[in-house]
């Protein structure tokens, strides 16, 4: 007889096919039978049970990829499972034999997935071990099997017929029925589980196991078991009855609170298993009837435990009565829909029927299979509740067991707290243990600003003045062919400072700096400080409207620039002019006060306007001191100035270098020309690079094509999550030879706040380290309380680096810069809006944003600012801005085209805030909760330009092929423009590297920018090849030509 499978069976069948060695769906019952066991009678009794239950006679055949359940008729030859009889030397041996069996997988193609072993420890001491694949039986079925076996055995011993309940339904009937029911339930689950929250789990579970960087160490998997005493168990039961619900609902509510307190999520998905035997005729059947059902908890608004209990009770009543459907039908991956489970076992209460003359007891099963990243199971034992937390090794941490152990202890603490004070809000329930509290204090960082005990040390201008005094003849700045000594840099700064004063700049003012990458730009920064003012840097091509807005916002009227400025602003020439070199300006700079503002950085503002972050001298001085020390900078170092001056990363490059008397090497052709600089004469002497992580990732992709300087000793990265794969690749090339430091920090906390060396440890998610000097980091939950290891909280930075605030934004400043109860009296700390956790090794892991702020190629972007600007345009109805494949993408409705809108934005926004991909829609897709449904947004599609001319020459074909791969665009024509197709500076680096790999010719990155179409770049490539050939011997030329043709 052939029957279809139930939806649940189909899923298990598929999972077993995908991973045949997975034993996590092996079900078992293990009992110790003491007394005179009649093994012959036992085998006959087993035959009775198998004859009674169709499921125990069912095998699974495949036909054209479709599985069918095939049951042998009762009593048929070969329908009986083999019974193993084993003599165990002792109890220990018996345990090993049992553990081997319960941890063994089943091959579903091999016949009925049922095995029975009778292990003799002594003449009157046996262990019965029955194992089956979950596809033929659930936990409830194991109880039935053992009960029926006991009854049949007893009946045979007494020579009577067994007394068993009628069995009107068999698994094949059930499967057909369940298939129809599940089909009808699909719409309910699709609606209920739409838009699932990100699947964060406590203790970093799953974080080492996602994507290609996954680390799942099965040796670290296991179970952490805790016990709840009778008294608390009784209280929990009473709490359940008081609220007309079950112990399961109370425990499920507590488990959801546990997840909420670890992840901050108020939308929580937890799976559970229900028996699925709500009809009386299903009760005595052996089969896979249990259902995996997902409960979606709404923990919003910090409800009391009892209020949440009411919500979960309602959810459980609604959800648990419905048949579950395979996750594939709901349209999201299983990890997203059911990241974790909580199960309360109530059926496993031990034998209820006599088993002949035998006394029946438990025997250790040694089960080791972990089904999911993290899940909890609870059951009763002697009036106590036992809770077992299963974890699968996917955190990537060697301390996983300890972390989950603590999680289990926190669960107990939480339950105790909930029964003691059920009317408390969930954020107020006790959950952290004494060890947790100690960790919180130990990990936060010291926050002290004192390299020496009695002095806070000089401010940055004084550090640089000291270098000028010590080594006036040393080279401070290299820009192309130009070299500027410290003495000359100082003279230029003095002259410009005098010019600023003469133009009316006073101490405490803010002065704009809008200059191309040049030595003048560096001396301008120093000159502003020398005049007692703070600098506000801009991109050289900053749109005029934004420049004017930011200056007005900062109350600035003077700009050091060679650009023409709007009316009302005073331009100061960067050279200052000879006439201002008054003798008194040649001396020491006026003492810089620690509380004065050193610089203002304009950052993207979510309300549609940029906001100026003002940072004081004492803050940046502490950072520069730490960097100089930590990066080991000294005369002789050559540090590339990569960052645009409009971002605060430039401070990390410029000032530690100048304070140390080392040399700053500029990139006059733009940051993207770094590979050209490294390959040019002098490039080999570079010792330190400070790069945006996104850019570094691209360089590592082409690691063999970059002329890494032999002198390179340190690379600092930051700005985005570093990829574990890139770190591994980097270390494969450099090992410990070049130090790799990962840094993290917002502009509001003076460039960086945490740092760590990325060393030999393999990483799932490379950490961002620990607080740097004079800095504290606390992770706070939604109620503002610090959280311990493994728990996700908002990253909050204290200490001397905290900025003064946002210029002329009192409410924004007051909201983000809040009292620091753990700092010195009256001090403030900065709430970053970043989510993070302390990993088990005591380093911080960055986990994204609490709000919608984006990072695109290292640039911090408030999509709200771009959206607000788009909505200014009369041709735009709705706008939504997000990131896709390293590109800023705008989804808009209305009549305007992407091209028009890009032009509109370019007048008011800096280039990195202008979307490069545009999708015009009739309407933005929304979820049932009224949010933009990100999953329903179409990916932007690039269309090559009209008038398509296919590439024809070898060079054109090569260029087009590389573009197509890196830009993800098919059929590129010779007149297509690199930037129009979505190219950006990071990709330009890789295009150059690929061309070099394809031809052996050094192609400057600059060329990619200058020759923007396939045709132009192909001509440039041919020219370079010709030039190369002319400088070669014939033999070398042959080799080059043959490699280029391949």
């Amino acid at each position, binding site marked *: 007889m052939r029957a279809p499978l139930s939806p649940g069976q189909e899923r298990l069948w598929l999972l077993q096919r995908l991973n045949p060695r997975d034993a996590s769906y092996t079900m078992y019952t293990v009992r110790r039978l003491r007394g005179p066991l009649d093994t012959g009678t036992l085998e006959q009794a087993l035959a009775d049970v198998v004859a009674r239950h169709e499921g125990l006679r069912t095998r699974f055949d495949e036909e054209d990829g479709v599985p069918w359940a095939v049951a042998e008729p009762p009593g048929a030859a070969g329908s009986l499972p083999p019974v193993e009889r084993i003599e165990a030397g002792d109890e220990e041996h018996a345990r090993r034999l049992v553990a081997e069996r319960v941890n063994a997988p089943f091959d579903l193609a091999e016949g009925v997935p049922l095995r029975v072993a009778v292990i003799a420890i002594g003449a009157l001491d046996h262990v019965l071990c029955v194992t089956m694949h979950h596809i033929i039986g659930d936990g409830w079925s194991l109880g039935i099997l053992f009960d029926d076996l006991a009854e049949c055995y007893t009946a045979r011993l007494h020579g009577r017929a067994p007394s068993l309940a009628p069995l009107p339904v068999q698994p094949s009937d059930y499967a057909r029925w369940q298939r129809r029911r599940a089909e009808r339930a699909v719409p309910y689950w699709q609606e209920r589980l739409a838009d699932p929250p990100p699947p964060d789990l406590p203790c970093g579970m799953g974080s080492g196991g996602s994507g290609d960087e996954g680390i799942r160490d099965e040796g670290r998997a296991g179970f952490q078991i805790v016990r709840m005493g009778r008294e608390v168990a009784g209280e929990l039961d009473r709490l359940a009855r008081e609220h007309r619900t079950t112990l399961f609902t109370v425990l499920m509510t507590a488990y959801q609170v546990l997840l909420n307190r670890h992840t901050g999520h108020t939308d929580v998905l937890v799976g559970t298993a229900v028996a699925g035997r709500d009809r009386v005729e299903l009760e005595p059947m052996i089969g896979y009837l249990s259902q995996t059902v997902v409960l979606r908890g709404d923990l919003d608004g910090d409800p009391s435990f009892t209020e949440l209990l009411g919500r979960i009770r309602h959810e459980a009543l609604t959800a648990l009565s419905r048949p579950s459907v395979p996750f594939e039908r709901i349209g999201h991956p299983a990890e997203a829909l059911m990241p974790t489970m909580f199960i309360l076992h109530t059926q496993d209460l031990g034998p209820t029927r006599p088993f002949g003359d035998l006394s029946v007891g438990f025997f250790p099963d040694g089960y080791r299979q972990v089904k999911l990243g993290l899940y909890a199971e609870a059951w009763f034992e002697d009036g106590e509740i036992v809770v077992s937390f299963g974890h699968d090794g996917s955190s990537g941490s060697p301390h996983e067991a300890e972390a989950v152990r603590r999680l289990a202890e926190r669960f107990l603490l939480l339950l105790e707290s909930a029964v003691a004070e059920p009317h408390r809000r969930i954020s107020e329930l006790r959950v952290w243990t004494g060890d947790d509290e100690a960790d919180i204090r130990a990990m936060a960082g010291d926050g002290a600003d004192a390299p020496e005990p009695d002095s806070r040390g000089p401010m940055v201008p004084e550090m640089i003045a000291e270098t000028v005094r010590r080594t006036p003849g040393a080279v401070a700045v290299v820009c192309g062919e130009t070299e500027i000594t410290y003495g000359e840099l100082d003279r230029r700064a003095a002259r410009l400072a005098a010019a600023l004063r003469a133009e009316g700049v006073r101490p405490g003012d803010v002065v704009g700096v809008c200059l191309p990458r040049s030595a003048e730009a560096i001396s301008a920064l120093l000159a502003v400080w020398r005049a007692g003012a703070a600098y506000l840097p801009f991109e050289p091509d900053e749109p005029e409207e934004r420049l004017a807005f930011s200056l007005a916002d900062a109350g600035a009227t003077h700009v050091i620039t060679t650009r023409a400025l709007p009316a009302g602003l005073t331009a100061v020439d960067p050279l200052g002019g000879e006439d201002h070199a008054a003798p008194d300006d040649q001396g020491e700079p006026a003492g810089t006060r620690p509380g004065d503002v050193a610089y203002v950085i304009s950052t993207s503002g979510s309300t549609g306007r940029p906001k100026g972050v003002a940072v004081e001298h004492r803050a940046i001085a502490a950072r520069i001191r730490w960097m100089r020390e930590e990066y080991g900078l000294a005369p002789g170092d050559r540090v590339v100035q990569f960052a645009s001056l409009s971002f605060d990363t430039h401070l990390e490059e410029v000032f530690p270098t100048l304070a140390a008397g080392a040399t700053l090497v500029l990139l006059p052709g733009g940051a993207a020309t770094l590979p050209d600089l490294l390959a040019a004469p002098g490039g080999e002497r570079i010792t330190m690079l400070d790069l945006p992580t996104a850019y570094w990732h691209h360089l590592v992709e082409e690691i063999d094509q970059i002329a890494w300087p032999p002198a390179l000793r340190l690379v600092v990265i930051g700005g985005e999550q570093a990829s574990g794969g890139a770190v591994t690749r980097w270390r494969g090339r450099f090992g410990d030879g070049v130090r790799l430091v990962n840094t993290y920090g917002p502009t509001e906390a003076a460039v960086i706040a945490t740092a760590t060396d990325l060393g030999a440890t393999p990483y799932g998610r490379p950490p961002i380290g620990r607080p740097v000097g004079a800095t504290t980091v606390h992770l706070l939950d939604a109620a503002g309380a610090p959280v311990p290891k493994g728990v996700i909280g908002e990253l909050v930075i204290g200490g001397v680096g905290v900025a003064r605030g946002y210029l002329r934004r009192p409410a924004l400043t007051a909201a983000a810069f809040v009292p620091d109860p753990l700092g010195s009296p009256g001090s*403030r700390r900065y709430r970053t809006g970043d989510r993070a956790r302390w990993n088990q090794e005591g380093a911080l892991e960055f986990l994204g944003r609490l709000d919608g702020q984006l990072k695109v190629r290292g640039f911090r972007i408030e999509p709200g600012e771009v959206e607000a600007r788009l909505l200014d345009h009369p041709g735009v109805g709705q706008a939504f801005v997000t990131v896709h494949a390293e590109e800023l993408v705008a989804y808009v409705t209305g009549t305007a085209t992407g091209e028009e809108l890009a032009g509109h934005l370019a007048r008011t926004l800096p280039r990195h805030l202008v979307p490069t991909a545009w999708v015009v829609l009739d309407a933005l897709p929304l979820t049932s909760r009224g949010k933009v449904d990100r999953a329903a947004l179409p990916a932007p599609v690039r269309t090559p330009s009209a008038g398509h001319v296919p590439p024809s020459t070898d060079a054109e074909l090569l260029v087009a092929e590389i573009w197509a791969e890196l830009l993800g665009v098919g059929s590129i024509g010779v007149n297509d423009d690199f930037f129009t197709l979505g190219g950006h500076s990071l990709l330009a680096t890789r295009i150059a590297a690929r061309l070099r790999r394809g031809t052996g010719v050094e192609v400057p990155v600059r060329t990619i920018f200058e020759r923007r179409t396939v045709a132009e770049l192909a001509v440039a490539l041919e020219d370079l090849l010709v030039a190369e050939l002319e400088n070669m011997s014939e033999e070398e030329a042959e080799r080059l030509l043959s490699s280029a043709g391949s």
Partner: protein
Amino acid sequence: MIDSPMLVVVNDEEQYSVWWSDREPPAGWRATGFAGTRQECLDHIETVWTDMRPLSARDPETLSVRDPATLSARDR
């Protein structure tokens, strides 16, 4: 974010922020007397915090006596 009742608080540098109304403000901070939702507190701060410079930085000619670092920098 949990929307509990908040207070407007201010420190000795006359910098404003918000704090939970059921918790004592940290050392160096005092309540101004304004209370409300978080947003109401922020709206209030937007109107009362008119000079955002810390008290010690308001007069460029006057050095802060509270800041020992300033004195040591000047003494050298």
